[in-house]
């Protein structure tokens, strides 16, 4: 369990096994609880006699706090490749494209540590050398540009973008 192994619950002396990030008044705040106090913390304030099911707990960990909260400056950040905002990610728990791991890096790292207790991959690597991130995502961006150009009936741009897409695809032997 990595670096959190010896951390104690904030409310008692049991080991903290739940690490929760809530957004309070626009600022992330971290809690470290044992199971019992984690449930207590996450239980809805009224009428919630049952502990939340695991899946809700997971979503809470990902989404990181109560639904009604003020957006932070990080929330307004938008990925130039897939156009998803960080707020959209927080609400759905799903990222929009591989590049989001770059663009939202500062926000995602503490989250990954919360979920996995680690922030560095150890394990299988694709046999083929992965292309660099820029090259990986250029196609996504170009296809978006193409879509927008076509929608705007800017056929000159569309033709140019299409040629760029073709040349990258050819380079990749597709």
């Amino acid at each position, binding site marked *: 369990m990595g670096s959190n192994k010896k951390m104690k619950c904030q409310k008692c002396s049991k080991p903290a096994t739940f690490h929760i990030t809530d957004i309070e008044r626009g600022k992330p705040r971290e809690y470290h609880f044992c199971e019992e106090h984690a449930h207590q913390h996450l239980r809805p304030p009224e009428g919630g006699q049952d502990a939340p099911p695991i899946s809700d707990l997971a979503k809470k960990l990902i989404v990181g706090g109560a639904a009604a909260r003020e957006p932070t400056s990080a929330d307004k950040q938008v990925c130039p490749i897939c156009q998803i905002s960080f707020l959209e990610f927080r609400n759905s728990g*799903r990222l929009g494209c591989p590049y989001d791991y770059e663009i939202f890096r500062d926000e995602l790292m503490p989250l990954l540590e919360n979920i996995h207790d680690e922030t560095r991959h150890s394990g*299988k*690597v694709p046999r083929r050398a992965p292309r660099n991130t820029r090259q990986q995502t250029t196609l996504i961006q170009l296809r978006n540009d193409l879509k927008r150009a076509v929608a705007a009936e800017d056929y000159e741009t569309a033709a140019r973008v299409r040629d760029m897409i073709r040349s990258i695809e050819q380079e990749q032997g597709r």
Partner: protein
Amino acid sequence: MNLDELTRSSGEWLRGTGPESDIVMCSRIRLARNLAEFPFTNRASRTEKSEIESSIRSAMQRANLELVYFDVNALPPLDRQFLVERQLISRELAAGEGPRGVAVGPLENIAIMVNEEDHLRIQVMLSGMALHDVWERINRLDDQLEEHLAYAFSTQLGYLTACPTNVGTGIRVGVMLHLPALAQTKQMEKVFRALQKINLAVRGLYGEGTQAFGDFYQISNQQTLGKSEPELIRILTDVVPQVIQYERTARQALMNEKRQHLHDQVSRAYGVLKTAHTISSEETMLLLSSVRLGINLGLIDDLEIATINELFIQTQPAYLQKIQGSELGVEERNVARASYLRSRLSNGRHVEPD
């Protein structure tokens, strides 16, 4: 192979073979993978989803894999549900929209979902406790596909996935266990808590919360980042034998202390399944679980474990409607289910499905 042909066979993972198969129904590993050049499924347009689908289908062909592809988008709801019941697709894929599908391998050991939460969800399943074998197979399969696909991968974070809970290895290592004695002696809570402490998740047969379906529980890893695939598999191969031992002890205690009561319960369950004329899905699951326990404890000796394993799947609503060839309401299904059970269990002999 088409979908109707699937109704006439059953998955290898139901055969009740392999190590510890009295308790371990099957071992399963899935890998989440995404194509580098596309947005994740939830953000992909219809056109992009269709391009993703055709890239993946062409990779499967070029890799010469023996797979049959089902275009889930074109399937009627009943057929989608049928694939969910067989554990070949997830509920999410069934309920999704746009171009998507599943490629199924021989004996249903392989299922590759396309355009689920991730572009690719590769699954390999085998009967019994066989995680190493499953890993070898899925690792090879992943290599074969990767020859023809550029996966989204970063050196620091590994395989990039739509949900940060899967990033890294993208692996979910799971074992499906039948734990009727622990359930009956109310010890499951204790097991849940112990597993949760070491970061393992417990789900039911169809992935639902913690509510058990026929006393089946799937135990799987939650961490995917920072540990290698073999390390994550080792956590399961270390822990599962302990749960198996716990279940065996509980079974032995039931046999020693309440043998007559248990024998009575098992025989009545068997009797009802053999003779009922209308029966709900819930009651069927409950009784099948008792009968399965009875076979494994030698209290029932004229029925094969494979038959019971298959019946857990083949008494589900979509399967019954598929073999009936028409849609059925709840009442009609209960009648069809009872009739199917009688035919499969008649005189205690193992009867192959028609």
